[in-house]
């Protein structure tokens, strides 16, 4: 059988030195501290401030969704064109802005950054607002093709001068809907309509769930549905 390679068999027995006795009061303090720490951690750790709900950073361009999506009524997909095809709802290239702004408000000082980007080829660096943890894989196309509207996660974007995160985007919040998708389903032609409301969401939602072939709760809450 195995040879013993460990040679510490003959080492002296270890005895705690006298000063180790002072650890007893320290241990008591540590336990008390722990008892205080746990609720503090939960209170702050799970507060909306930590999950960054209402996060609304200053963007490099004072772009107003309230004006474009709200007043002018431009469809979300005009700019976020990949939302039905890909995981990301792409932020539009500068070109998309200039499609209109070569003719409209070309001189506006608010557009200086966009014009500069168009001329130099240097992209505009937008601040990311809706950020999930890197181990969560969200797919826009899987949601908007199955009747989850923009509003459900992003709120009334059409009323926001500055975009802010309105939902916590926490796992618990994702699961609420993955367990009961019928509460957030709408007809496919109403995906981008911000103020759509069903007469009977529960009933219509269940019908739509069947029509869209949405999987059962077990599948929808499997870990690999979102994590890889």
């Amino acid at each position: 059988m195995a040879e013993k390679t460990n040679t510490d068999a003959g080492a002296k027995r270890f005895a705690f030195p006298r000063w180790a006795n002072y650890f007893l009061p320290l241990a008591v303090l540590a336990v008390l501290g722990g008892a205080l720490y746990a609720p503090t951690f939960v209170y702050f750790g799970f507060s909306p401030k930590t999950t960054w709900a209402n996060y609304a950073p200053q963007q490099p361009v004072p772009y107003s969704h309230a004006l474009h999506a709200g007043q002018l009524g431009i469809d979300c997909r005009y700019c976020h064109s990949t939302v039905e095809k890909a995981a990301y709802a792409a932020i539009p290239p500068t070109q998309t802005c200039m499609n209109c702004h070569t003719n409209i408000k070309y001189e506006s000082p608010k557009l200086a950054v966009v014009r500069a980007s168009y001329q130099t080829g240097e992209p505009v660096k937008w601040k990311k607002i809706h950020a999930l943890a890197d181990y969560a894989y969200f797919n826009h196309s899987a949601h908007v093709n199955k009747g989850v509207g923009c509003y459900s996660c992003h709120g009334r974007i059409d009323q926001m001068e500055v975009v802010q995160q309105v939902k916590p985007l926490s796992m618990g919040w994702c699961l609420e809907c993955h367990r009961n998708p019928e509460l957030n389903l709408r007809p496919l032609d109403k995906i981008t309509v911000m103020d759509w409301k069903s007469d009977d969401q529960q009933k219509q939602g269940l019908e739509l769930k069947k029509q869209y072939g949405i999987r059962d709760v077990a599948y929808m809450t499997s870990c690999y549905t979102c994590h890889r």
Partner: protein
Amino acid sequence: MPSMNDTKNETKRGYWRSLDELAQSSRVAELVDQEFPGYDPEHMVGTSRRDFVKFAGAGLALAGLATVGGCRRWPEEEIVPFTSAPSETIPGRALSYATVYELGGVGHGLLATAYDGRPTKVEGNPNHPFAVTVAGKIGSATQFAQATVLDMYDPDRSRVIINRTTAKPEAGTWAEFVEVASEKLAKAAAPVILSEAMSGPTVAALKKELLAAYPKLEWVEYEPISHDAQTEAGKLLTGAAVREIYDLSVADVVVLLDADLFSAANPGHVRYQADWAARRKVEGKEAVERGISRVYMAESTYSVTGSNADERLPIKPSRVDAIARGIAVGVGVSGVSAPDGLSAMEKAFVENAVADLKKAGKNAVVAAGSHLNPATVAVAMAINAALGASSGGAVKVVALPDGARPSHSAAIVKLAEQLNAGSVDVLLIVGGNPAFDAPVDVKFEEAIKKVGFSAHLSLYDNETSVACKWHVNRAHYLESWTDARALDGTVSIGQPIILPLFDGKSPAEFLAAMAGDKLAKVTGEALVRQANGLGDDKAWRKVLHDGVIPGTAYAAATVKVGGEIPQPAPMGTTAFELRFLPDSKMYDGRFANNGWLNELPDAMTKIVWDNALLLSKKDSETLGVTTGSVVKVTVGTGLAALIQDVAVYVMPGQPNGSAAVALGYGRRVSGKLGVGQGFPTYNLRGSTGWHVVGADIRSIGESYQIVTTQEHHLIDWSAKMAISQRIGDKGVTGKIARETTFVDFKADEHSANKKSHGKMSLQLFDPPNTFNTPHAWGMAIDMNACTGCMACVTACQAENNIPVVGKSEAYNHRIMQWIRIDRYFKHDPVNDADVQMPDTIHMPMLCLHCENAPCEQVCPVAATVHDTEGLNTMIYNRCIGTRYCSNNCPYKVRRFNYLDYQSKDPRGGKWPWLDLPDTQQMASVDKIKQMVFNPQVSVRMRGVMEKCTYCVQRIKAKTIPARNHKEEVLADGTVKWGNVVDGDIITACQQVCPTQALVFGDLNDAESQVSKLRRSPRSYDVLEELNTRPRSKHMAKVRNPVAGAVAEAKAPTAHG
């Protein structure tokens, strides 16, 4: 029933992994007893365990403060869109482009996958004739080609042009270099361009142009791993350079004379393995009626190909010629005389091969290794011609256009003479690394230094660059326009996937600049288009899409037989014959700084991070050495003797008297990983004795730590006793790795499983859930197709962001690869005590996704649970690192991140506890290395368990778009949504498997390929008695020895 201590009974054990295990040395006993051998925590970490606990406590307290004070979760991120998006680009969606990678003058057709313009994965091009495995759908690539993507993001890659003419090396500019070099070239009396082998039409055109522009220019081509023997043999037989290409898909009999066709270094690697597997299929009545092919191998080491042969003869390299001539005489080749002195074993081998070859006629292949004497290779060619195989049979012969070229070894010797004589005044070296890999006796490094003006175009600032006056950083092939010819001459275009990261130049751009002003401003794209005559835009785009230009294969040629084939010069009588092998990971040394390849276990030895001298068991005993002993190898005598110390690896199946050693290690100038790794065996390779040389080997009484993965995951003695009882002798099918012979299989298709079915007497748990909605994912792993080539391991590493751990961590059994190829040997202890004739079985092992998974039952935090489709999911963000799951896994397929292996400093830097985990991890991974990550897979951090996921990201990448697609809207308004079909989802390992030994699919679909394979009578569950109900089933191997049933083939002499 033997007692637990009855180790004598163990000699009867069928399978073993290393000779140490077979002999039950104390070293192995130690491995079994210790979970992490050699692991000394006090020594390994800078702080003691006690200190660590103190610091950890402090760290937690600080992290707590940060949480309360900062109220932050992640750092601010930016979204940077295009200013004007190119068509087809969708952020975060992968795009694949056809391209080509050239290794040793042969192009490998590839598909490179890029995310947002960032290549992350390289696979075979299904349109390329030498990469396709499933027509139009799947292409395979060697581990070399796959790992090149890591080279591309190597932080140690050369980033600037270096001028060494000044007192201190300084950075130069491209314009500066072109000006200086052109001037020197114009005035040169005897300029030379030394180039690595490049087959593409672009370089050929530029070569022509340069030779016209500078009439005094000489063009020399050199490759350290050369396949010139065949070219020379062609010249010997027919007076023209030819190349034989084998079609193993029609070959009934394959006789290999030391020809390692399945080696990754063989340019036909993918094609040969795919074709071999196609001719070994036993599915269906027709296939069984037709029978499977039989492979003979006479070889001087134990190669991957040899391990898959049905009849294997271990011989010294010098005996191969005799075997070749024996077979030639047997099949009636004229101009060859019968060899004398064939031993009984050799005679039996020759007689069997001759009988089978005669029967097979046109459908036979005889291949000789490219390290052999051209005369021997000519004999093999003559046999093919005599059988009619090379005229419309299983052997295709093509004429090579560069036939006039002297052989690589002759060329480099002549050039060195010229350099030493001072007759060369300008030397431009395009690629390669001759200062490292030229024959050691010509002292090429010193010779370069004697030249007035020398420049080296290279990916790395290496040995040759340092010896040259200038170094020009080369563009990686994924950054440049290239072209290359496949084995049969078919041209492929290589397109850049990304702009040069460090502004490097491709060989074509470099040569064009040297050719003069008129081309200096021409782009690589224009050069390639022009050389290939693809002016038409439509044709150009089609070629770029397909990756190949049809109709560009070399012209067919014929081999004439008739004249006398000369005898090769006899080997001197030395104790050993030393054979040089291309390394299965380093090739010729160019991949020295590539972590994926360094850590890829060799297919046969399972060595990582090193090379070693392979000796037979008997020879090692005679020398008094064992695995890990350092020996002094001496080639030649007196002052000219070449001497190098090398560590020994005792290799089962290695012929007595034959020593083999891989080239490519022991780099002197390379990146962080490459320098000093392994043994510089080029020091033994002189200009005579280029492939095989007589050598003297002596023990010097020192030892060296070789790390192999073959003894990882050993289980304890009591369990092993149980295994030994269940497996039995060589020739009897085992329980874990099952096999049968074709004769037995024909008689009873259940022969592999008949006696092996496990018995499950106790059912501990309720029958598990069915896990089949909406799909039931599963896999079939065919050991009859697996050759053990290791391509899947690199594929998995690239696809799943698997870290490299380094040699010392590998020693601690912490290697992270999710898939491993278990290689078991099996031999007859009575008649083959020297272990010359072991049988080998290669068994891919990865997470089998057990329905009744033992790992799930012990996880305290439910971090590993089943999803509804049968995937055993591993949730990193939930894992707290107890490692219970790994303990309870009977297949040992789980891997734990002991350290932050992806970071620059896996031990976490000086004050790791001051950073929050997220920022710490992001900052600690090299910015350039980050670019190789697959964005669809989480990068795991310290303290997390991981394992095979069945490539869940690939499943989602197909199922989500399929479900989004409205296939049909019925009259009543109901929608029929799309769904994936069989073959849509291909895991990374299946994708690159040349033989499609791994097949993934939906078990709900009874007609899917995987369902059909799993219904095969060869199919079985590994360790079925544990009732784990694996979703991956293995399939038994079918051997085809002459003796029919393996059970009869006991002694080596009994083969006749």
